[in-house]
């Protein structure tokens, strides 16, 4: 059922949802993974958020609260573009307060988006709702930890705590992409 209209979903709706999920999946691949060639990140985060800008209005037709994310998606796109651009030019130390504010926006954004996707999964009879809700909790905690003003890049990654964090981060990233793909497949089946 479409929670927005409280009517049964038409097959065209499922097709549209698959398309939306495809965009979101690709967006998350761009956001969570990074491949650097020297200073250049060839999987820039801002491209991922740009994809989300296009996916969110369509998602909002089925999950109305997703419309709250559009402004933040735009803000995150611009912010990540600036950061990517400054990295290309050798890096820049942004004021800590600015990075913390955008950290807060990012935490909320991903939490709400994953919640919306979980709601979508429940309303369309898919089984990924519970996994998505668990994922959003772990993702929130991880993002919070990484957003703290700790010089993670200078810490020896082979000691216990950073290694554990790195492991969790890797697991969450991979799990995110897998769950989204699984949800997409289930919608395709429908």
């Amino acid at each position, binding site marked *: 059922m479409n929670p927005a209209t409280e009517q049964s979903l038409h097959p065209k709706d499922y097709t549209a949802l698959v398309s939306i999920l495809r965009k979101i999946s690709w967006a998350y691949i761009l956001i969570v993974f990074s491949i650097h060639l020297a200073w250049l990140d060839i999987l820039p985060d801002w491209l991922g958020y740009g994809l989300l800008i296009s996916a969110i209005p369509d998602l909002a037709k089925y999950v109305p609260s997703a419309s709250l994310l559009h402004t933040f998606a735009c803000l995150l796109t611009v912010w990540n573009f600036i950061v990517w651009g400054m990295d290309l030019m050798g890096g820049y130390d942004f004021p800590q307060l600015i990075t913390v*504010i955008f950290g807060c926006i990012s935490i909320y954004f991903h939490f709400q988006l994953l919640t919306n996707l979980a709601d979508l999964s429940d309303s369309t009879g898919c089984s990924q709702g519970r996994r998505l809700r668990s994922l959003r909790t772990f993702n929130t905690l991880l993002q919070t930890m990484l957003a703290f003003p700790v010089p993670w890049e200078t810490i020896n990654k082979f000691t216990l705590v950073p290694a554990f964090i790195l492991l969790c981060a890797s697991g969450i990233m991979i799990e995110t992409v897998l769950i989204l793909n699984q949800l997409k497949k289930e919608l395709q089946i429908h």
Partner: protein
Amino acid sequence: MSNIWEFLLQTATVSLTAGLLLLLKKLFEDKLPPRWQYTIWFLLALRVLLPAATQNRYILLPLPVWIEALKSIAEQNLSASAFGPSLFSAPFDPVHLTSGLPWPAVSAQSTADTCSVTDVLFLIYIAGVLSCLLRYAISYWKLRSLLRRNACESSPEVEDLVCKTAEKYNLPDCPVVTMEDLPSAFICGVFKPVLVLPARTQTDSQEGIDEKILLHELLHLKYHDALQSVFWSLLRALHWCNPFLQYVFNRIGNDMEALCDQRVLERLEGEERREYGRILLEMTNDRYPRAFGTSSLSNGASNIALRIGCIARFKKYPKGMELVSICMALLLMVPLFFGATTREFNRFQDSPRNYHLAFASARLNRCTTMAGAVDTFYRSLADENSLLLATCSPLHLQYTIREQMDPDFYEGASNGFNYSLPVSLDGWPYDAEKDAYYIYNLRSAAVEESTAYDAELLIPLKSIGKYSDGLEEFLAAQTPKQRQAVLDFADKHGYANIAGCAVYYLTISEEKNRWVITQRAPRDLYFTGDLGEGFLSCEAYAAFLPETGYGVYKAESETGKVLVRQMTALTVDIDPAKVFSEVNLDADFYWNYDRETVTYTFKGPDDTRTSVTEVLLEKRNLTSPEDAIQESWWNWDAEISGNAAASGTNHSSRSWEGEPGTWDGTMTALRGGGMTVSHMDPTAQLDAAEPVPAYAVRIKLNGRLTEKLVALPAWTDIPQKEVNAE
């Protein structure tokens, strides 16, 4: 807060925090629940109560530097005027908040006898705080008196309805009274709360009393909103003269009401929620009785309009949103409380108007370690920078340093406005890759009531050319014989190769949680000549420390003399690539050299000297000079094995064998080594290590004991007069 400047800094910091929170709340206005919108204000409450960071860590804007610069300008001008100096602050006493609460305190640097303009302003501020608190107390007392006089006990039906409402929603209840001419219900009191209802309910039937009104008020009671209201009022009083913060505290009150609305709506369903909105609408024409120690359903027409907007947006926020709220609050705490910017040190300024800001910045920067203070002092000489000198100098020298500054504005120069020192090293410091200077003989100083250490700072020098100003000064510091030696050396090797060293006599002391440097005596400049392999080694330069300096022991007889030099040399942990570019106020000591040099010089007849084919020099530490009185004490052969060049801690020896006539009459024994200081505090070792009281030195020539000398401390304390930048 002990003066008006500290209040200005505190209120500006709180205002900035409030502004940032307002921005965040606007961003998340329709995204996070009223619970977060209100609770986030407790970060502001903490910010009000905790002192603003002043050690050059700040939130986005360098408020401490601005306030410090403004203070020094204002207090200097006022001191010079008829108003006189301030009692609570001094021009160069850095703003240092220790509390968010006001309490006047006389500044240690103040020279005033009476209050000045800024002191009076601060006293007016304190009077304002007290009068606000008094006003709150009086208004609460008046309200309570009014209730006692005019309020009536409510009817049994009303009381029954209140009880049933409390029971239905699992809320606490309280005594209920009614009063005439009351616009809306409210809870009055913190410790003995009373629910006050408008008197029209007295004559209405039970159905006329809206349960939702009671629900709202009982929720205020459950969550102690009256107590929270008192808390916010107290914080408001601390910043009574800041109109922006008054607006913010009004917003906090409105957010508290909006949170109560949220709690009401969470307990209602469907049509009841719309009815609740209608009840609020009916109150838009009513007066707003905001009173101390109360919580009310109505908070003014415009605010009710905002609350109705929130009700229209009401939705059940997803579970887990509390986690997001907590995470965001934790993240925000770090920059808001601990500052988000590390110290920015303005070494060079690009315009004279930044002169005051630069010196303010210098005063606020702290050398947090002894090594940091010494390193900053060294750099002030090497860079000819008064700002650096100001950073590592005591407060009472700040004015002198500023007055002696020679602002030389170079248009277009890369270093811009150069705060030249009148006496510096003028291009002399050798651009060493490491070990740019040594700190010799760091030891406790005999200074009462403070933690202080003496040391000699030795800086290797190298001339940059025949026509440099530094060369003239260097030559002027030499004796005629030494001057000639310099010129002869220059003729032979070139002026560019003239090498020397500068010795500074420093006292390093603690002042208000920072380490500062004063010079005990004028510096000395020495010509070192060609040191060969000894260039830049601490042993070679130690020879240029004064023979009356710390750690020198002497003994002399008719046939010989002994000089024992006990020496420690520290270096500072500096990145070789950044020797002349970055200031490290938190530097650590890096390498600790520990040396003991015993030098014997034969004074006897020349024919005796030329007959010597074996020399044995032995040294032993004495716990007291009286130890050596006993003859048996000198028989220490069994304790030392062999003729090692250096052995043990308390003994050292050196031997020489050669052909007759080849001995030059001197013999030197070395003992010591080096080790990294890493995180070890050298001062902890200083406390434990006392200087050796005396040394016993034994000389054997050709296997026969020739000399027994007791070397006693020969150093005198350098006079403790202070030497400023000159």
